[in-house]
């Protein structure tokens, strides 16, 4: 790209800047327009899960449905409510989308096609992702609305909590590869994908990322019954649409990043030589992961906030810490295999390391799930005892203190799960 501008007679420095800008605009716009398609995919898949047809009027199979939606949103009034704190209020949707778009810069699309292969790519992904938190705080504060503020706080508490297992599980592929560069991570997966080494870490990564974008079953962010629509309640028109755009784009980018980190990215037969194949492989993998995320979304009921927090801090965080320590131990104890041979030779050389890690990872998953089940059984036992006490009027219900009341609520919802 830079070369084209140099040929056109621009001075070298300026050509570099222009080339970069054009590349960025193209890359960012392509990704930004993707949600127009993924929203249709999402609605269609959701409809099928619920035995409906979904959008089917505009274009074949309703594929153009998103365009009239965008046009409609453009015609909606952008209301600036009274007493809003204008700067945070208006900056918030912009930062939200920008933070998500920035992730695109480090995604390796093919062996030679990547925005930029930063030496700290994986860390860049986390850093930029943490900017969304600020956008949410700004929206909550700027809206001058109690529900928005409360929603923002819940959301931020959820996001920062789930960032911990996210980063820990991201640490594991980095540990295996020994580099933060995204392209190096993909090249490492030339023999085995990282998901074969550490499937448990992959699952933790996906789960915490789903929580990070606030999708079902972690969609307390927009719990309509409790918080109306959370921090975005006061937004309308395109400003509101930006939050949705950011969510859908982020959801798809999570699928892409997951494919890059755990499913070999662009790796596939002949991808080394034909870059277009690399893009195709990455797209296919990403859509499979995206479908899995939709499946989860359509199947599981919403978490309760205390369960959400407990699940993170008392399950995901300890498990991911143990996983990091175990994988690091195995990795530093094992000798580096000789990877100079052909592909099949490397496949054989790499196998012992892969197998040992796989076994360790599966053991961690099994043991932690056992412990979780044990805990759940205890909890059920305790709840049924409380229920029995209430039924036999042994519980101090008559002298309704605040404590007794809240306990009854726990019984009511707790016995269901």
């Amino acid at each position, binding site marked *: 790209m830079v070369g084209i501008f140099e040929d056109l007679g621009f001075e070298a420095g300026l050509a570099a800047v222009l080339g970069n800008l054009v590349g960025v605009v193209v890359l960012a716009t392509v990704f930004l327009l993707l949600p127009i398609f993924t929203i249709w995919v999402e609605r269609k898949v959701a409809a099928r899960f619920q035995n409906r047809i979904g959008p089917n009027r505009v274009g074949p199979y309703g594929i153009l449905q998103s365009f009239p939606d965008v046009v409609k949103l453009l015609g909606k009034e952008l209301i600036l409510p009274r007493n809003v704190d204008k700067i945070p209020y208006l900056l918030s949707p912009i930062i939200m989308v920008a933070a998500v778009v920035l992730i695109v810069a480090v995604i390796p699309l093919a062996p030679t096609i990547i925005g930029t292969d930063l030496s700290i790519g994986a860390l860049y992904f986390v850093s930029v992702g943490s900017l969304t938190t600020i956008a949410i705080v700004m929206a909550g504060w700027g809206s001058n*609305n109690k529900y928005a503020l409360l929603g923002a706080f819940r959301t931020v508490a959820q996001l*920062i909590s789930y960032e911990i297992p996210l980063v820990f599980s991201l640490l594991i592929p*980095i540990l295996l590869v020994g580099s933060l560069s995204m392209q190096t991570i993909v090249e490492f997966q030339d023999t085995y994908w990282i998901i074969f080494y550490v499937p448990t870490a992959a699952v933790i990564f996906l789960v915490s990322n789903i929580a990070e974008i606030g999708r079902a079953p972690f969609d307390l962010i927009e719990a309509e019954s409790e918080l109306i629509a959370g921090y975005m309640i006061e937004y309308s028109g395109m400003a509101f649409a930006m939050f949705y755009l950011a969510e859908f784009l982020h959801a798809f980018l999570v699928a892409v990043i997951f494919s890059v980190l755990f499913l070999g990215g662009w790796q596939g037969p002949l991808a080394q030589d034909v870059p277009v194949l690399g893009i195709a492989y990455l797209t296919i993998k990403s859509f499979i992961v995206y479908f899995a995320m939709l499946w989860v979304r359509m199947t599981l009921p919403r978490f309760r906030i205390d369960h959400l927090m407990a699940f993170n801090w008392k399950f995901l965080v300890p498990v991911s810490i143990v996983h990091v320590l175990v994988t690091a131990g195995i990795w530093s104890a094992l000798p580096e295999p000789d990877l100079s041979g052909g592909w099949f030779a490397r496949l054989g050389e790499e196998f012992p390391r892969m197998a040992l890690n796989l076994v360790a990872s599966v053991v961690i998953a099994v043991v932690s799930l056992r412990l979780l089940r044990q805990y759940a059984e205890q909890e059920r036992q305790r709840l049924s005892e409380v229920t029995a006490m209430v039924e036999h009027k042994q519980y101090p219900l008559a002298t309704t203190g605040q404590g007794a009341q809240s306990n009854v609520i726990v019984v009511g919802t707790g016995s269901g799960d």
Partner: protein
Amino acid sequence: MELGQWAFVAAFFVVAPLLPIAPIVLNRLLAPSRPSETKLDVYECGVETVGDTWGQIKVQYYLYAIIFLVFDVEMVFLFPWAVALGSLDFSAYLAGLVFVFLLVEGLVYAWRKGALEWN
């Protein structure tokens, strides 16, 4: 060379905010704007809003934020450790092990003290 890569990122930082600004401005130009007293009101539960918006929130949020902060800083040290681990001997692993164990202590304390409880 390294800086050249960051020029690309810098360009991203310039372009990324412009992408959402464009539709919002377009929206402002295209859509009607007829503000009225009621329309500009705070949307809460249908009745008029009561009290100060910037009210006090629970200290629980703060406790999560502090535990998050400590673990986030831990990452600063664990990322380079993880990257370097493959090229170092076993003592480097032990260094990281001690580091993590010292921090897990803090998590265990928070757990035992009920700071992880949402109530």
